[in-house]
């Protein structure tokens, strides 16, 4: 514009617009990157800084020395390691078997299996722990019926609850590499004379090995940094996560919290490194891959069916028993149906569920918009800017929710932003969104790869403006991804506990936290009732949104045909 050259031909027009196009991308990138700096980089830097400075702001390793010198912390650290390793071993082996059953067997009832795997993702993170307490605890159904005593609180109870949560994540990660294996690898080996067992060793295992490693790291990290289960069912088996919670929420000792938090960053950082390596090694699923169809094999299916049953039945059972117990008069002694547990002893009653809905919708909406513009801008970035941007976008994956929550406490408790952030809904929205930023970002980037660059160029050559280009070319292709990122952020925000547990205030509580508070007050049945409400609300919201998305995607498909 305004170049003063009168001979501007039509061929110059796209070049000029390209300048404007670029400016739009810079604008698109600014807000998401600013958000990452303020809500991820800064709190994280403050935590690390706090861990290596004393209360007098002088550099010191005294906090780490204190950690190493405290038998209590060392024991908790050892417990975390032992528990993390046990949960990882169980989740990875069971998860691999379940994923294998889903993709390489002719087992009936795969829908039930998928449903069971969805439950821990849909329900507040304490449901599995509550469920096993109702089942095997001192006032549990099994004790009531048989008189047997289990020492549930402690190592094994904790392992069980965490394994229930870790299993679906393993299945998810391993499934993607099992699903991406082409049938012809197996056909080729079969024709060359390989037995089924050799095919498993020579094709299936190598295809999955990186996914298994990645899954192990993810589960280990999640387990070691999760403290909801540890509080509810850990009993006297103290782990680092409960120590950090006690230090920060109980004694307001941010220094100690910062030091443990920094230590907990390590496995997470390691797991990111491994995951990225895995992503690079496992390669893409090329076009036209043929789905593997399991040959008929009764023995295999019976075996896998048993394993899948053993692995998934507890998830179904614990969830079902939580729902059941929430309606019981006096669990487990009087099982008559009552709604009494739904009158909860909380000052604000069910308001936290409404708040959770608000927070989750906002986190999903704002988050999807920010991720979309960042991913869009990333397509046009190059050089150091692109590297910085993608580093920032993926950084949250290395930050456990627990650490992020403490970071927010340290960063926003006082300081310039505290006035309008502390105790506001905004900080909860930010915490939930940035906690899951990396996963959402990866999904978004992958989804935008489906937008054909050629189509975008054609639209550009036809002289389409920027807004039109995004609206008419990019959006139709990105719509399914936008929807799935939205669901992901919404569901995670509804049920996640870590992070936000440090940020809620008596005046502004969240549903997942309320479940934990009720349990800690000893109102276990009310906790069950509350958890049931959350599951129903989340389930309904997700079902409604899926319906809407299905309708939208049908429309998009139609418009794509026209395009």
């Amino acid at each position: 514009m305004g170049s003063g050259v009168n001979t501007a031909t039509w061929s110059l027009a796209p070049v000029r617009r390209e300048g404007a196009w670029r400016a739009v991308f810079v604008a698109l990138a600014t807000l998401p990157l600013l958000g990452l700096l303020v809500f991820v980089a800064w709190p994280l830097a403050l935590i690390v800084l706090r861990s290596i400075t004393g209360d007098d702001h002088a550099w010191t390793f005294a906090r780490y020395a204190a950690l190493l010198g405290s038998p209590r912390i060392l024991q908790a650290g050892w417990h975390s390691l032992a528990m993390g390793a046990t949960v990882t071993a169980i989740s990875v082996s069971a998860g691999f078997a379940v994923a294998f059953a889903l993709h390489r067997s002719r087992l009936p009832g795969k829908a039930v299996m998928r449903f069971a795997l969805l439950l821990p993702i849909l329900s507040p993170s304490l449901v599995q722990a509550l469920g096993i307490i109702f089942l095997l605890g001192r006032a549990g159904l099994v004790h009531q019926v048989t008189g047997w005593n289990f020492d549930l609180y402690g190592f094994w109870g904790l392992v069980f609850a965490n394994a229930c949560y870790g299993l679906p994540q393993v299945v998810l990660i391993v499934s993607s590499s099992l699903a991406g294996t082409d049938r012809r690898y197996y056909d080729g080996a079969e024709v060359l004379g390989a037995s089924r067992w050799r095919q498993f060793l020579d094709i299936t295992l190598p295809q999955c090995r990186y996914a298994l490693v990645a899954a192990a790291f993810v589960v280990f990290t999640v387990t070691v940094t999760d403290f909801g289960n540890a509080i509810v069912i850990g009993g006297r088996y103290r782990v680092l996560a409960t120590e950090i919670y006690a230090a920060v929420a109980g004694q307001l000792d941010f220094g100690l919290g910062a030091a443990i938090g920094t230590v907990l960053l390590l496995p997470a950082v390691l797991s990111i490194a491994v995951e990225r390596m895995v992503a690079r090694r496992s390669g893409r699923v090329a076009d036209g891959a043929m789905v593997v169809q399991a040959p008929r094999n009764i023995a295999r299916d019976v075996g896998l069916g048993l394993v899948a049953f053993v692995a998934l039945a507890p998830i179904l059972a614990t969830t079902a028993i939580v729902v059941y117990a929430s309606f019981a008069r006096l669990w487990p002694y009087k099982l008559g149906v009552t709604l009494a547990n739904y009158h909860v002893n909380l000052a604000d009653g069910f308001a936290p569920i409404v708040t959770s809905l608000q927070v989750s919708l906002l986190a999903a909406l704002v988050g999807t918009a920010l991720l979309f513009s960042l991913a869009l801008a990333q397509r046009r970035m190059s050089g150091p800017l692109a590297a910085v941007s993608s580093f920032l976008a993926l950084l949250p994956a290395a930050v456990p929710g627990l650490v992020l929550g403490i970071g927010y406490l340290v960063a926003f408790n006082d300081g310039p932003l505290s006035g309008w952030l502390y105790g506001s809904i905004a900080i909860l929205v930010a915490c939930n969104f940035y906690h899951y930023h990396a996963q959402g970002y990866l999904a978004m980037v992958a989804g935008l790869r489906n937008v054909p660059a050629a189509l975008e160029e054609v639209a550009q050559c036809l002289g389409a403006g920027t807004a039109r280009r995004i609206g008419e070319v990019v959006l139709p292709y990105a719509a399914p991804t936008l929807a799935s990122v939205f669901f992901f952020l919404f569901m995670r925000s509804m049920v996640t506990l870590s992070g936000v547990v440090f940020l809620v205030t008596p005046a502004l509580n969240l549903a997942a936290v309320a479940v934990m508070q009720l349990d800690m007050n000893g109102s276990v049945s009310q906790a069950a009732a509350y958890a049931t409400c959350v599951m129903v609300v989340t389930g309904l919201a997700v079902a409604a949104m899926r319906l809407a998305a299905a309708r939208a995607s049908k429309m998009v498909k139609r418009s794509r045909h026209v395009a």
Partner: protein
Amino acid sequence: MDAVHADAAKLSVDSLGKSFDGVAVLHDISLQAQAGEFICLLGPSGCGKTTLLRIIAGLEEPGTGTVRLGGRDLAGVPARERGFGIVFQSYSLFPYMTVAQNVGYGMRIRGASGHAVSSRVDELLGMTGMAGHAGRLPWQLSGGQQQRVAMARALAVNPAVLLLDEPFSALDARVRVQLRGEVHALQRRLRIPTIMVTHDQEEALVLADRVACMNEGRIEQVGTPREIYARPRTRFVASFIGAATLLDTTFVREHAPALLEDRPSGAETAFEACVRPEDVRLDVDPAGDARVVDVQFLGSVARVTAQWHGKSLLADMHPSRTPAPGDAMSVWLDPSRSTWVAA
């Protein structure tokens, strides 16, 4: 087909049928491959070529019918015991094994000693021109090199039958021509009965001893490339292989009665005359009854499309003597070179 013939056939497929979820995809397929014979399964996408090949390999159960090898019924013999070799269009090589490990895989499974495996691997990599690449991983090879290795792997176990499912179709045109020449020479030398799936008619005509032309789950015609081209038996074969003009009986009776002579007896609509463009003679003739509508330059010939009593007639002419669109032409069809095909 008599019993003696069946035994002589190395590989024999008899009245094979197959359906998926109630949808029939193969109907009554019969096919014999003699020792050392190269057969191409040619047909449009989705006609069941891959399914037929997979049934022969034992990777898919036949619905009805039998597959025999040297007279022995293969029903119930799993793929891994048939001792065949197979090469796919892609995804042939195990991605986590080196070239040498891939080629030696079948032998290792059969328990061959390390020394025997490595000398056989060297031999085959030499034979397929891949000698320098033994330590590479598949993704470090070009598409053509991957297919060479896949071929070496299939041949390493001295397969009784070689099955190829569009082995060249993911390659660019030049590599494809080169590789098919090499495969042809290799197959001639080793004399392994080979069945290759392709939808590239040129590939089929160049490579095959016999072509089996498939359409919608049926084999419409089996014959040498010459037979298939010069004497197609059905309308589908005539139009799928090479260019042809098809003329219905009524039209022929009116405008080219000379062709009627060798028409098989049958209903008016049962047969159509098939004339290849190179067998049509067009002469510039102001009184002619055909009119040129289009001239395509194809290099060695020019393909003329002429409007002839409402039909589009294709004719090849020498490129130096092509008419211009709009020119009037007289038509002469050689009765000895036209065929009647089932409509």
